């Protein structure tokens, strides 16, 4: 139930990929024999499926090694190509690290970065975007849906503002594409990062949508070499993975609506069940502008990390990355104005195509039991309030 981290490769996707490891092993850049042509055709087909999923045209899809590369390429590529026009980029505090770190790198090179804050519901106010635009602004980069809290941003409104002001608009759409409808025309998006492994495709392959018409985006490559993909991204194409990506996109387009409905009802059932069994539970972020599969909740009095450790047979994660030992709470949750203690008390659940009602019922049972047990043990919960300082210190 950690589908925001990754999803399993659908067996139908895997089946489509297999021949491209063995008998159809050609390099699409080989123009002189049928092995090359065959591979090129397969890549082309995949490109069309992916373009169809996001309302783009096939030639606007650039394959990359994943969304991190796509984000880097969009931001650094635009910054370099448009630096004669301005040096200001607008983004938000809850972006993925690939976006934030790219911006920080550019900041060191003299670019000005505006990091917009979000409201309590985790959403960006489009008016803040409008106000932040200056004559120097060249790019706005706002994610479509957040990977921790699943909150969906007002992308169409931001897109309209960007278009009106003549500023390019990039969105990291990794968590949204394949789960909810996403159309680059409707949303007025100029660049969009997507990845296969969040939509039941293989890991290690992603794409960057680059608008080619009204306006045609100039983008400086970040990987130079054999001039593949019109010179935008050199390197031999990863044919089996691209074929898998294409098949995954095709399946998403076919099944998205039914799946969205099913997963949403599972998610709502999960939340209801947890609410029935656990007395004090808080949902982090907006519940109505949210991916249908996401749940991010805090259980006051305990830490998400101890809960995750306590229920080892359910895959879930803490909103907070407790890797450094300093236990820094999630920057996304704290950006919502959530206290450090409550941010530490959070877990993130991401349901997906292969979860069913039995699994959800099992999760409700196991998580509730673990939360209540940890609370019994907790000196913080006993005192009736949340916070490490609530224990009186004497002596």
């Amino acid at each position, binding site marked *: 139930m950690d589908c925001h981290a990754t999803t399993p490769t659908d067996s139908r996707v895997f089946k489509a990929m297999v021949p491209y490891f063995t008998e159809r092993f050609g390099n699409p850049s080989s123009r002189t024999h049928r092995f090359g042509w065959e591979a090129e055709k397969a890549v082309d087909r995949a490109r069309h499926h992916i373009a169809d999923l996001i309302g783009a045209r096939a030639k606007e899809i650039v394959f990359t090694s994943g969304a991190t590369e796509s984000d880097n390429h969009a931001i650094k590529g635009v910054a370099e190509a448009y630096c004669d026009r301005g040096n200001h980029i607008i983004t938000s505090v809850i972006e993925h690290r690939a976006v934030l770190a790219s911006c920080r790198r550019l900041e060191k090179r003299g670019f000005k970065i505006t990091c917009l804050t979000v409201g309590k519901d985790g959403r960006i106010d489009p008016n803040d975007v409008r106000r932040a635009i200056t004559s120097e602004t060249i790019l706005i980069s706002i994610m479509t849906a957040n990977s921790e809290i699943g909150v969906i941003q007002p992308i169409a409104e931001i897109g309209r503002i960007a278009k009106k002001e003549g500023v390019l608009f990039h969105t990291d759409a990794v968590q949204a594409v394949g789960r909810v409808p996403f159309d680059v025309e409707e949303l007025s998006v100029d660049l969009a990062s997507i990845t296969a492994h969040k939509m039941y495709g293989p890991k290690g392959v992603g794409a960057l949508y680059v608008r080619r018409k009204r306006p045609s985006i100039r983008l400086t490559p970040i990987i130079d070499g054999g001039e593949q993909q019109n010179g935008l991204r050199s390197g031999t194409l990863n044919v089996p993975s691209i074929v898998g990506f294409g098949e995954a996109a095709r399946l998403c387009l076919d099944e998205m609506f039914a799946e969205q409905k099913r997963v949403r009802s599972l998610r709502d059932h999960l939340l209801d069940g947890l609410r029935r069994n656990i007395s004090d539970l808080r949902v982090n972020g907006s519940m109505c502008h949210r991916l249908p599969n996401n749940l991010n909740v805090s259980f006051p009095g305990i830490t998400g990390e101890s809960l995750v*450790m306590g229920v080892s047979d359910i895959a879930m994660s803490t909103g907070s990355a*407790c890797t450094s030992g*300093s236990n820094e709470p999630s920057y996304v949750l704290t950006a919502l104005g959530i206290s450090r203690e409550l941010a530490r008390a959070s877990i993130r659940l991401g349901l997906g195509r292969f979860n069913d009602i039995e699994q959800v019922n099992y999760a409700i049972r196991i998580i509730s039991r673990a939360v209540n047990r940890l609370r019994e043990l907790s000196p913080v919960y006993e005192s009736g309030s949340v916070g*490490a300082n609530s224990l009186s210190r004497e002596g």
Partner: protein
Amino acid sequence: MGTGIAEGEICGDIVRLQIRINPATGLIVAVRLKAYGCGPSIASASLASEWLQDITLESALQIKGHEIARALGLRGSRRHGALLVEQAIRAAVMDYQCKKSSGVSEANKVTVSGPANKNNLDVVV
């Protein structure tokens, strides 16, 4: 009865141990435990409360954080919980001894936060 609390100021984890001692035998007869924090802290406290059963205060003071960490397979920064527990044990024993020598039944409980905190830093580095 002796109560010891250890708090890691950086991570915010809290371990509270209460030990009940049989004055005739000098053995710990009951351990009560409260713990808040990351998984390793809670696991360390839980393991230590088992180790503390039916041993003397001298043996209790011999329980070291690194032993708890080794028993649980904790490495690197994840060992801080085990060190916190060591502090809590020491505080609980000190608290009991204070009460015993002063003859006051309800002495202030002893809180150790400084040293645990310092230990945290040591492990992280």
